């Protein structure tokens, strides 16, 4: 029944080793978001796609990139993870027509 699926649930990566997190959705929503949530902090928007149009938040580090090859899938690439990038990464979707946001279960990233 999961409508926004994030893989993997837990990811351990080495300092400086590129890592990719994935998000897929079965809702056919045209907007997809990536949020970063550190422990006991507010989720922070990194970027979003409106269809294929990519929008980067001004304070998102260059180390973070994203790809959306089709409506269903979106990827978050961290080129050179640092210890400060350890966090929960949340994917969310939204239709353009209403305000409903659906979140995935998140990927917990650990950098060692």
């Amino acid at each position, binding site marked *: 029944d999961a409508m926004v699926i994030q893989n993997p649930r837990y990811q351990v990566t080495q300092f400086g080793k590129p890592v990719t997190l994935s998000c897929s959705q079965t809702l056919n929503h045209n907007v997809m978001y990536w949020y970063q949530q550190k422990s006991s902090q*507010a*989720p922070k928007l990194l970027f979003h796609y409106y269809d294929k149009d990519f*929008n980067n938040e001004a304070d998102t580090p260059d180390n973070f990139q994203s790809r959306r090859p089709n409506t269903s899938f979106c990827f978050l690439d961290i080129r050179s993870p640092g210890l400060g990038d350890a966090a929960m990464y949340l994917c969310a979707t939204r239709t353009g027509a209403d305000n*409903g946001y659906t979140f995935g279960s998140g990927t917990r990233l650990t950098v060692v």
Partner: protein
Amino acid sequence: EDQVTQSPEALRLQEGESSSLNCSYTVSGLRGLFWYRQDPGKGPEFLFTLYSAGEEKEKERLKATLTKKESFLHITAPKPEDSATYLCAVQEAGGYNKLIFGAGTRLAVHP
């Protein structure tokens, strides 16, 4: 700058002890205010959207209210299964409808 502040940071209640969580916000134009529940290690789960001052919404033991500067999430006779972090977020008018979140209130309800 748009801001969302939630209080208290943490709240411990006895089962059946009603209370309220606060979300104060500053936004140039409010399109909607959202409440989410987040369990440990999971993504936020949608609870309510409020659009205009004076609006109220209810779901089981939860009731959300909205004024021009803040929102309250009232919890009536809570149960241990209500234990979670409750997140408030505002959706600004324009700006591709992104959500700006508060840091949340961690609620623990003890039997």
